[in-house]
């Protein structure tokens, strides 16, 4: 199968959906012809679809989301880009109180088919305001679906599903994944929400990981296999809906679970997954649940500091070994 980057996979999904459905359009800061997206995901789209459908906005995150919401409830399918996930804080009211709640508040009279794309993640030394992973905030908001692909294949398939979904979808990317290459079929496909992907099968311990951490988990699994520890790596791919069953089933088999996410540990995504396992498969656990996540600090700038806080193969291996004895 042909290999393309995560960035190109996302662009293909956008392009194909814009061709398929003329109500789909893109808006965000510098997504248009002059800059083509901070991470070049929208490259070429303004040229192909025009400035009306690939729309540069002022630096107004709150209005970007609000405008998308207003367009969505009147017949359009906007895809809003927030340049860095950290800046979603500026649009939090529009996301959590408007986009997520309009359908419910209005008793089902409307739905809000918006996709809100944003990159998360540290690792490129751009410090506290451009490096966070804030999935947990949105996971706590009923009314939002959440997709977070870790591969080019998942990126394309999930983004197409997101755009076709009638409800709001938060679509989280990772800065370090954009250049990653992987197989993506030429033919049309979509990936259903709520179906985890077992990125590696294993018998000894379940590792649940998301976004860039999937790759760290796979690398750790490879190293651990040399020591005879057989790791299963599960990528939920969507956090809402979350494929609890796949996680619980795997734990029933392995009896052990390590959850690896790049967000700050306290009240993060890994807490929810840990809680589900503790509620639903406690009897099958042979060891304490382990969470590998960032410590509770902002992301520091200097490379040695930043590398210290980001979970990596070593911290994953350490956590696995603490419970596989």
């Amino acid at each position, binding site marked *: 199968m042909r290999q393309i980057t995560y960035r190109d996979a996302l662009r293909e999904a956008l392009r194909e959906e814009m061709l398929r459905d003329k*109500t789909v359009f893109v808006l965000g800061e510098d997504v248009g012809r002059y800059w083509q997206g901070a991470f070049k995901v929208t490259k070429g789209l303004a040229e192909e679809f025009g400035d009306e459908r690939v729309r540069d906005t*002022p630096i107004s995150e709150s*209005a970007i989301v609000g405008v998308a919401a*207003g*367009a969505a*409830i009147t017949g359009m399918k906007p895809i809003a880009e927030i340049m860095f996930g950290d800046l979603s804080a500026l649009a939090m009211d529009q996301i959590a109180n408007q986009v997520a709640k309009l359908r419910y*508040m209005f*008793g089902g009279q409307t739905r809000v088919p918006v996709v809100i794309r944003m990159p998360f993640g540290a690792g490129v030394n751009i410090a506290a305001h451009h490096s966070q992973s804030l999935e947990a905030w949105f996971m706590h908001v009923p009314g939002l679906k959440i997709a977070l692909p870790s591969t080019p294949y998942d990126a394309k398939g999930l983004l197409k599903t997101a755009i076709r979904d009638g*409800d709001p979808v938060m679509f989280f990317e990772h800065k370090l994944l954009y250049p990653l290459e992987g197989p993506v079929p030429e033919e049309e496909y979509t990936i259903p929400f709520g179906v985890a992907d077992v990125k590696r099968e294993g018998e000894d311990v379940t590792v649940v990981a998301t976004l860039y951490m999937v790759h760290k988990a796979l690398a750790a699994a490879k190293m651990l296999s040399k020591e005879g520890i057989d790791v299963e790596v599960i990528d939920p791919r969507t956090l809402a809906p979350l494929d609890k069953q796949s996680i619980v089933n795997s734990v029933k088999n392995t009896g052990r679970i390590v959850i690896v996410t790049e967000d700050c540990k306290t009240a993060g995504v890994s807490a929810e997954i840990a809680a589900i396992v503790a509620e639903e498969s406690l009897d099958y656990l042979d060891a304490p649940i382990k969470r590998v996540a960032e410590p509770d600090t902002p992301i520091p700038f200097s490379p040695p500091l930043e590398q210290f806080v980001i979970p990596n193969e070593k911290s994953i291996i350490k956590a696995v070994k603490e419970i596989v004895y």
Partner: protein
Amino acid sequence: MNLEKEKLLEMYRKMLEIRHFEEKAFELYGQNLVPGTLHLYAGQEAVAVGVCANLRKDDYITSTHRGHGHCIAKGAQLDRIMAEILGKKTGYCKGKGGSMHIADFSVGMLGATAVVGAGIPIASGAGLSIKLRGTDQVVACFFGEGASNQGTFHEGINMAAIWTLPVVFVCENNLYAMGTRQTNVMLIENVAERAVAYGIPGVTVDGNDVLAVYEAAHEAVKRARESRGPTLIECKTYRHKGHSRFDPATYRPKEEVEEWLKKDSVQRFKAKLLEMKILTETEVDKIEQDVIAAVEKAAKFAIDSPCPAPEEALEDVCA
């Protein structure tokens, strides 16, 4: 403005409907039939009616915590509004929204948000949708003078301006945001002056004169419909009651209240219609009786309607 008699009567009737509806809501509230809180529109009728009289059914509006008047003016049914206020299953939002979140998408009423100012970018988004779909609809966006200090006001109107969107921003300046006087939170006299910041027209009108509002909105709606972009209209008005159910509004000087009550829009419009000989005293009574009956009927519908079943709380949400 040369309006047909029929149009004038329709506007008068709508204003009366709002007035009586709000009085009824207040009354039901006193009888403990209204859960939660209530922000009454009484006093501001000329704004909603003056603006919406320029709109087609397929045009849109967005609304606020003080939204009953907007709903009625845009053509939503009294009974289903009242049912929503009472938390009934027959309400527009099946009881999920209540007074602060009424919506009727079937008449282009895109809903009330209770986060002050949050509806402004949403209105711009509806405008963008119109532009992209290539129709000649327009959007009217209602909000208070208090909301004009929110960041969303700035961001939302600027976006409508730069993209020449068909939106009419209607600021209902009733001088107060809860207990906070306008003069305490902005140095300028007229919110409409803020239009300068976006390079769009800004006009201030007597918000208790329905014809003045109609005229300003007429111009703005025309502009919007012809794809010439948004307008900011400020309507100076006054709420008759306190901010919400428990508010005695003691922060308002008595003389100020009295002065504004004298400027009541419903009375003024009635006097004008009588003077123009469009209405006779008998007709006035007739309309009033009709409206009262309609409101009573709506109240009865609402009171008699069942509450939603508890488990319905789990419906209408994804994921």
